[in-house]
């Protein structure tokens, strides 16, 4: 609200699947960071940490239960089955109250100390969403890092969601947008695509992030199958530009067919060319024209389906956002520099 100053709150949401080696250290780091924000009198304060137990496969559940007893601002959400990282993140966001929401991994790949820098990027880029991106290959595996990079580029091109190239699970999101996207998204909607329906103010910040778990053990929460599923959801949640390319191809083909038909017909009618096979002219004209029309109509039908699919995924007509409190962040970072 204009002219009103109040402390900006933020929540951290952490989906947990197999984090028992990291959770206690992560909690200590979060607490240290929370205290530091108090010490420097930052205008943004950590008010809650939501751990979402996504039917974890190790001792994470017990560890989270202990942490919740120890830290009164920690909250545990227990999912009824394993729904995957994005669904778990959305469940956590829908249980958060912060003006801003930070989503991060359980394995300290995303250190809490970087959150201040993410807030700095909000001010610098006037963003609603800031992704924390690894400045170098996070997995220290060329195949894995390049695979991830180019998959996102291809999907971004095909889906029309430009910000997907920067997407990562370390995000700082304006709370209202995070909750709106989480409440609209269907079970197969890719969360970062859904976020793009609510804002175009998306930026990324290069940070020294390392996936230590993968580097040390070659273990990751994702296998090839889940990565493929990720890419599929990413593409089908978006606008599916490929369909438009298909429709355009149909139009070009139909026009070419018309021109070619005209040429063949005129050639035959006025005797410029004598085709040896009887009926070739009419057959070719019919095939080319009908083929073009069919591809074009198919493109239109797919475009309609794409619109309906996006509606089913929850794409809104409009959304309202309040950015007035950003001036407090700006003031803080200007005084810091």
């Amino acid at each position, binding site marked *: 609200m204009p002219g009103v100053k109040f402390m900006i709150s933020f929540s951290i949401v952490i989906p947990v699947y197999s984090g028992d080696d990291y959770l206690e250290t992560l909690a200590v780091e979060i607490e240290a960071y929370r205290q530091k924000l108090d010490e420097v009198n930052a205008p943004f304060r950590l008010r809650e940490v939501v751990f979402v137990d996504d039917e974890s496969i190790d001792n994470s559940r017990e560890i989270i239960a202990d942490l919740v007893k120890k830290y009164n601002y920690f909250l545990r959400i227990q999912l009824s089955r394993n729904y995957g990282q994005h669904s778990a993140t959305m469940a956590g966001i829908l*249980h958060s109250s912060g003006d801003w929401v930070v989503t991060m991994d359980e394995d300290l790949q995303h250190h809490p100390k970087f959150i201040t820098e993410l807030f700095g990027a909000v001010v610098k880029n006037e963003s609603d969403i800031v992704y924390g991106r690894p400045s170098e290959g996070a997995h220290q595996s060329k195949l894995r890092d390049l695979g991830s990079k180019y998959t996102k580029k291809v999907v971004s091109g095909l889906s029309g969601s430009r910000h997907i190239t920067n997407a990562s699970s370390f995000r700082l999101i304006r709370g209202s947008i995070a*909750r709106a996207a989480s409440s609209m998204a269907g079970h197969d909607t890719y969360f970062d695509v859904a976020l793009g329906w609510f804002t175009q103010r998306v930026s990324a910040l290069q940070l020294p992030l390392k996936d230590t778990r993968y580097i040390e053990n070659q273990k990751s929460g994702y296998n090839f199958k889940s990565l493929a599923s990720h890419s599929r959801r990413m593409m089908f949640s978006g606008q599916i530009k490929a369909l438009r390319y298909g429709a355009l191809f149909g139009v070009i083909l139909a026009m070419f067919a018309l021109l070619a038909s005209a040429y063949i017909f005129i050639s035959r009618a006025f005797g410029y060319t004598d085709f040896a096979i009887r009926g070739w002219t009419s057959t070719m004209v019919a095939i080319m024209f009908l083929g073009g029309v069919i591809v074009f109509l198919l493109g239109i039908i797919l475009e309609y389906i794409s619109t309906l699919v996006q509606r089913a995924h929850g794409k809104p007509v409009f959304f309202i956002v309040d950015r007035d409190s950003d001036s407090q962040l700006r003031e803080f970072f200007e005084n810091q520099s």
Partner: protein
Amino acid sequence: MKLMSYSAASEFADKKKFVLLLGMGLIGYSVYSALLRAGWQTEKDYTFLWDNIGFQSKQLKQSLSDLVSINSKDRTRTDIHIVWCAGKAGFSSPNSAFEDEGKSFSNLVDFAEFAKSEASIESVYFHHMSSAGGLYEGQSFVDLSSKPAPLRPYGFEKLRQEKLLQSNQTTKGTYMIYRPSSIYGFQNGGRTGLVSTLILNALKGDVSRIFGGINTLRDFIYIEDIGNFVCAKINEISIGGSVFFLASGKPTSTYEVISNIEYLTHKKLYIQYETTLENALNNSFRNSSLSGLFAITPLGTGVKKTLEKIRSNKY
């Protein structure tokens, strides 16, 4: 106002108990329904007139006399649970609208003292339906250490009522104060909250006016959860002096409620937002503030149940 009784079916069970239930709005009716489901019986109905304290006192004394008469058949001493779910004015009402409610509540506390003097009554328990939304309006992350800081007459009156119970000699050791967050559910003819109004308007195709913002956070709690909890407390009570937050612990934005209702009704909602600084303040509760025994219906399930009730009522 209703007088209800519960007779133990087994000789090993508790003695006979009575409930004097005041208020048959959304919450009062849910408590009443929960008690009926738990085996309580309605003994008498009484008229309650807000603006006539004399008449109220007469009716209260009549209920006590009826209680003694009914109980004398069993020749046992009994407990009475006075359950206050009544409220004359609404959340946005001005100060003057709470005069009658304040006087009626004070009169009821005096009646508790009077009932205690009746020979056949062993204990008087006072159950008070307060309001978490009224006491903590505009506060986020509310927990047990948060201080009530009402912003409008509704909240101030609820806080005054709580303090009266906590300081009164008769009720101070036997009160149970319930602080529900934003309740939702459906009752034909009663006040309709945000959820019911939106469902009704979705079904009718009418425009809804929302006094708040699209991103305003509230903590929604399904009405049957309140009724079941109060009923459980009446049935199990041994000591009083407790305050319970009846909240879900899950902040929910207006936008989430709207998408939930559109999804469940398969209808488009037409919304007009009336957003001001006062009505767009967030209100959320930490899980640590909640009673561990409070069973919470998830929002989607509660909205679905409300929708079914509205549909079966042929709106």
